[in-house]
């Protein structure tokens, strides 16, 4: 008869976690506790815990050690011993136990040499049905797992079962997960549609075609609904646009992409502009339009890989004023260390500078150079860089040298002179 009062109080609420209507907030407000650290507990708490809880604490410690040392066999053994905590009469420990076993179980199964897909399926099914707090998350993870292993239809089935799940007040805190489930339902419809599309031959097979179209309809309905809500929906947008392009609905696609990129409600997302740009490029839009999109992208992400294209567009543009804008773009690009050793970028810079020299716009070069000369020299033109470039990328060295020649006219010729000497020396050596 251990601690009967606690048992009484607790056993009255066994199952309350499943059936009660108290929301998460109420429960949190009732017991204001520091966040639960499962692997460390105070000595005081340890002195008062029951033998059962002590066993489960030690078991969890053993599982943790086994997993960190990659002893998966041992970890599986301890986890099966740990599963007795699912029958704990203490409510909060029991709900924790569900989550622990789910997460640890999947991790162990992933690494264990003998695990099969059936084991995963069984584990997911069991953990879904014990305790409702994690239902949506487990469903999502289950379907992802099936998707990654190629069982697309199973994944779709799991998600559609999950999408129609309602559980009183428990659905509210899990609403975000349910939204995701809904979105991935649509996404999986798209994936199936794509599979059917590639398998459908030119010889019109009506039934499979009809299936394909039905999937398209399902997918488009869901995806439209999802994309209409503010958020970051990159893969869904791409899939929707892909389907619309196949059915030659360009205006709808354009509308969707523009909404995604320009709507103020949506979080700022550079990818949106990239998708819009790529779409328009595919459909041969006029350069002016492309330039306007890339201008926004330049503001958002000056170091984007599309900036080179932007630069060339500006250079080749007939609109006056665009040419001058191209130089800052490419200089900005080279300010970022990711483009330091990129030959194309340096070539672009060289091209732009020669064009400017031809058109007599050296003052602009001077402006740009004035801002940058302090740090560019250490960033691009040290002896170390010279040696490295000579070993790895000869052409880059040459291009940089040419740029140096042009820049040298605007300042710090001595440094460049030394640099050029070094290059000559290196060339003589090899």
């Amino acid at each position, binding site marked *: 008869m251990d601690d009967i009062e606690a048992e009484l109080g607790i056993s*009255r609420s066994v199952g309350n976690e499943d059936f009660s209507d108290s929301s998460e907030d109420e429960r949190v407000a009732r017991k204001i506790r520091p966040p639960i650290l499962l692997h460390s507990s105070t000595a005081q708490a340890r002195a008062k815990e029951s033998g059962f809880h002590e066993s489960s604490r030690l078991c969890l410690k053993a599982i943790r050690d086994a997993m960190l040392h990659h002893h998966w066999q041992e970890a599986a053994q301890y986890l099966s011993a740990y599963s007795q905590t699912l029958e704990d009469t203490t409510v909060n420990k029991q709900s924790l136990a569900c989550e622990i076993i789910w997460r640890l179980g999947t991790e162990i199964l992933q690494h264990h040499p003998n695990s099969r897909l059936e084991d995963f399926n069984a584990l997911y099914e069991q953990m879904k049905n014990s305790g409702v707090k994690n239902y949506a998350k487990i469903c999502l993870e289950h379907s992802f797992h099936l998707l990654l292993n190629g069982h697309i239809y199973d994944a779709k089935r799991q998600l559609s079962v999950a999408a129609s799940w309602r559980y009183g007040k428990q659905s509210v805190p899990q609403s975000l997960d349910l939204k995701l489930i809904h979105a991935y339902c649509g996404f999986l419809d798209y994936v199936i549609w794509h599979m059917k599309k590639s398998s459908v031959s030119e010889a019109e097979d009506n039934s499979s075609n009809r299936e394909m179209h039905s999937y398209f309809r399902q997918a488009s309905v869901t995806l439209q609904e999802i994309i209409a809500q503010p958020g970051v929906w990159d893969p869904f947008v791409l899939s929707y646009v892909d389907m619309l392009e196949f059915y030659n609905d360009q205006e709808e696609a354009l509308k969707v992409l523009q909404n995604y990129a320009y709507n103020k409600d949506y979080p700022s997302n550079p990818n949106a502009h990239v998708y819009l740009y790529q779409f328009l490029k595919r459909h041969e839009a006029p350069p002016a339009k492309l330039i306007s999109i890339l201008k926004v992208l330049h503001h958002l992400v000056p170091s984007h890989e599309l900036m080179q294209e932007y630069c060339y567009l500006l250079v080749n543009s007939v609109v006056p004023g665009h040419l001058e804008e191209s130089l800052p773009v490419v200089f900005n690009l080279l300010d970022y260390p990711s483009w330091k050793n990129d030959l194309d970028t340096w070539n672009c810079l060289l091209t732009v500078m020669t064009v400017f020299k031809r058109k007599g716009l050296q003052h602009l070069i001077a402006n740009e150079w004035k801002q940058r000369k302090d740090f560019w020299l250490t960033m691009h033109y040290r002896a170390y860089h010279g040696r490295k470039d000579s070993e790895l990328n000869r052409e880059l060295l040459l291009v940089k040298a040419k740029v140096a020649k042009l820049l040298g006219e605007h300042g710090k010729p001595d440094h460049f002179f030394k640099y050029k000497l070094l290059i000559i020396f290196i060339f003589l050596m090899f």
Partner: protein
Amino acid sequence: MDEHLTEGYSEPCKQCGAVSWALSDGCQFFCRNCHNVIEKTQDVVDVSSFILNNKISSISSSSRKKTRREGGREWMVCEGFQFILKLQAEALVGLGVCPQFKTDVLWDFWKRYLQITRQAYTRSPVNSFTNTVYLSSESEPESAFLSEASDQTEPMSASGHSTDGRSSVCSGSLDAACYLSAKERKSRQLMNMPRTLALCHLALLWLREAITLADLLRLVSRRLIPYINVYEEFPEEMQFYGRDAIIFRVETIPSYRKVHGEALQMAEILQLPAFPPVTSDCLLHPALLSLRYLMEVNLPDELHSLVCRVIEKSAMGKESFLTFNPSKPKSTFLFYDLQAAALIIVTMKLLFKLDDHVEWTLSRKAVKKDDQGKKKTSKQGSKMFSLKAWYMTVHPALERARQREELFEARRPWKSKKVLIPAMKHKAVVLKRRRVVEQLQSSFHTLTGSVPEQQSSSPSSFQFLWGQEEDSDGPSLHHKRLNCMLEKRGKEKWLVNQAYWHTDLKRCHKKDCRDHYSELKHSLPRMYVWLLGLFSFLLRVSEAQVHKEVVEVERRLLLRKAVPEEDNHKHRKRKGRKTSSSF
């Protein structure tokens, strides 16, 4: 039949496509066409209707009565405890205790207990049926109908327990409800699970058996004595569910201190006379018990004579001191095993001082002396006992044993094979969880390809094995000599170490002042603390308790007025000379 329970669910069956669901006994949905069982169980909406059904059924109570009469019989909680005690006694007799333990001693104690608490063997027992009939006419119609099974908490005195018609139904035994209010339990001195162990301990003490309280708890931990989930072995007629679980289920093995306290209380309740005296030939006597512990920790046998000297000097070997006499108000109930351990520690302190310096110096000297003394190539190695060698042998073994113990504890299965349902409204949930656990365990077992470890626990009273065998914990040091610890001065042999330290020996005035060990721990020598840790692991008690016992021994040794003062500083081992203090 079950339409009202399953009507919310209208998914077609996966196998046959029909929509006709029914509810199985295990509260799972199954298809009536093809009997395909699915994972879905009753959910929220349905439970309230289920509870409603329960209420209705309790008034008519037909189902309840039926199950009770079909092969079941009514039983009281004390019968359950009697059964448990019987199982425990049989286990102990199987381990080597004399058979009178079960048939005479324990049984007598139990009868006496029932008599004194007026649960049986008395003219006016507390739980009588006559009382019930009288009450039922006054109480609600529900309990009237269940007169044979009603709770007796209405009765006697105003106990704070409210008659909840449902709760009185929900237990297999008749008077489980009595055991649930703390006031009742204390006033009527009702039985609980730790008390079964306390009773066993008292009976073992009465017979002066070698199984100490620490051994008893270790045997419980190793499942050699039934304690966890004993109710699985109740006979079929004793139907066990509901509130019984709270009384008979254990989720902790009680600590040494708790069982000791319960034993003291039980001795008071039973109004026992003086126990049979603990003489120097019985195994509980510190002289013999300390020999056992010396063997356990791999100390040389020569140490035993010194321990006996300490026992003698501190007058702890006297029968009057060692025997427990509950009738005398001032008699103390001793911790025999802790005492023996404390005596060994005090002897070690006398020999080695254990202040983190002297013992290592002495070890070095022992090794040197050994090297000097080697005339031929000794096959047995060194003959002298060196504390350093002892520490280097025992410490790794101790760490390994601790690790093993921790992993054993981690794997211990607490839940029984029989599912316990504390209340009917939770039945579905509990059964579902049990199913999930079983499925998980079976799937992980197939994954690891292993059968769950058979706990091969051979009942041995020793936890370490010292010797040359393959699975021993280390080499045996029992034959080592202690010559280097003693030196000849004139005709007598004196201990090399002449100093002794101890913590504050003053008794605390407050009664419930438990221990000061946690404050002292950081200032004590590490070797001493390690030694405390060794014995606390062996006896499964806390280090504070061992330290407290050491302080007790030191109090008796150093503060006694009867012993002449000069003996406190000169510890002499006299060879062949008779003195009054020799044995």
